[in-house]
């Protein structure tokens, strides 16, 4: 049964995943080209000064990519479930409803994780081409809250989509946006180093939380 559920998720997500993979590769290529362009038109030591001392982030075009990715995966995964009451049919599969929902989100969040790893590796590799390793490591550490934003956006969108009542959907969206807002307060690099474990721990609360709209869907529709 679990294999069938995963196959269904794959069928729902494969085109979205292909599009997202292309988008991520495209954004990384754009990052490479924009850095290459900067190093062609400016003195390298000045770019290093801007990056290290003035704390400019030459990779900030990636800032909202994970959040967008999380939302797109959730929409691709759960919009079909909400059309024509298909979600109710899924809840009648011979598997516990909470296990079913968690399997779905593990699959969706897992795909998001794969893309996040691609982003982090790409960011490190591209930064390393133009900067010393300290700057590449710093870039990945700076991008970690943005990657966490992907997780939050995925779960926020999932909660809103699975929820049967429109007002509560807005509450879930507001909750997701309020959390996302905490992840973009930086003024420079690595400012989340000391708070990120706490934010990551808080974001784990989304895992049990995602059961509530499914529970409400089942008992209201």
């Amino acid at each position, binding site marked *: 049964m679990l294999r069938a559920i995963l196959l269904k998720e794959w069928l729902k997500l494969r085109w979205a995943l292909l599009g997202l993979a292309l988008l991520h590769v495209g954004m990384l290529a754009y990052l490479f080209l924009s850095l290459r362009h900067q190093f062609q038109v400016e003195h390298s*030591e000045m770019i290093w000064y801007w990056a290290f001392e003035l704390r400019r982030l030459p990779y900030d075009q990636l800032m909202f990519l994970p959040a967008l990715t999380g939302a797109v995966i959730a929409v691709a995964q759960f919009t079909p479930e909400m059309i024509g009451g298909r979600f109710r049919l899924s809840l009648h599969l011979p598997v516990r409803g909470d296990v079913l929902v968690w399997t779905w989100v593990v699959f969706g969040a897992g795909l998001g994780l794969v893309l996040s790893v691609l982003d982090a590796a790409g960011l490190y590799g591209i930064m390393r081409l133009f900067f*010393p390793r300290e700057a590449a490591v710093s870039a990945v550490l700076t991008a970690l809250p943005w990657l966490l934003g992907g997780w939050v956006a995925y779960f926020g969108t999932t909660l809103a989509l699975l929820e049967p009542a429109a007002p509560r959907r807005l509450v879930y969206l507001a909750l997701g946006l309020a959390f996302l807002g905490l992840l973009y307060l930086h003024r420079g690099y690595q400012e989340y180093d000391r708070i990120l474990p706490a934010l990551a721990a808080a974001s784990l609360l989304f895992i049990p939380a995602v059961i509530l709209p499914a529970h409400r869907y089942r008992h209201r529709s």
Partner: protein
Amino acid sequence: MTATLARWSLLALAIALLAVWLPLGKDLLFEYRYGKTNLFYSPVIERFVYKELLGDGHQFVYRDETGTDYAREAFEALIPFIYYKNMELWGKLPLTLQGRRFDKAGIQAARQVLQLDPEELPEHRPRIQLFPLLESNPGRARLRFPEDIMRPGQRLTFINSDANRIDPALTRTFTEALADAGFAFPVAASFGRVSILKPFDAGFFLLDARAELFHLKRVDDAPVVARVPLPPDLVVRHVKVAENKRGEYLGLVLTEDHRLFLLGQQDYALTPLPLPAYDPERMALKILFNPLYRTAIYSDKTHVHAVAMDQDFRPIDRYSREMVMARTRPVDQVWSALVPFSLALEDPNGRYLRLQPRLHGQTALIGIGLALPLAYWWLRHRGLRRRDLLPSLLLVAVTGLYGLIANLLFPPERASPRLSREAAEPLTGAAEAAAAGGD
């Protein structure tokens, strides 16, 4: 069970987010306009004078430590070395004080400001440990950044920025020069002022593995290293390098036990600064030099302290006062009564974001007292039995208004025989399908 866990997870998330965002919303609605008190030592009346914003608009007060108020122009005339350009404009230069005449050039030559903010301390902000070591003898009018960057570590590595590769020759030359001067690798800390907008370049101060301090400069592309003599009881925490045209002091040395010294430019002589109650973790410090006095002014968010010193840094007068911004505003008092705590993410003394809970104390009992009956009414309205209310009411008792709002956003499901039974069971589609005979 899982639905209950889900709801409580959402309650926890909602309360945490409300405790962050609602205080920010309050501050946005009721903006905080009071700035810090500007405190000076007047060489004219030989008393401390200050300028303070009392409220909305331009409610400035210009006052001395005895409480005498002044008009703005009279106030500025009390500190002519600060407002010397106005003095010139008003035809009051040269001025005579303590039997000495001071013209514009003389005032300018004697002025210097040294600053140390908590945010500058290495532990208070992230910094990629790569620094440009400027050429101190550029042989031209302006300083310029070198095409390599210094990486302090097991050796002093230089990385060429054009090729993004280590420069082995430069690395060897500078590492050997430091080792020959007695420097014990690895480099424990590096202090310098990374800028080309300064009158000259003083290089970097490097702390070695034995906590000894060395001064490194790049002169004609070669290393010049000097050991900074330190008293045995002094452990350096931070060196604030501040090149200045006066050429007397290179900056400040902060020790691990919060003592502060001026660092002499010629011989690295350390001049202790008598700063009672100075706490570098949370106090911003300024040292003002003028032709007659040196004044150290340091303040946190509530109090400002000042020490006036003669030219040899012997204290001649001291003053402290609570700033207007320390007074609790009515809106803050109401807020403290409404919610029991808030979560602040931004640290006023550093660049790292931190999760700082701020408890509001006993006044918050008022808000909790209001929230509890409202929560009771709401939960009863949802059809909950009295014994089922207890966990939610306990949550409101601890989190006050936040808990009430969270309960309004994520209320318990309305009690009904069917829902009560099912809520107690896991979300079992198969069981329901079997019971209902399938949809």
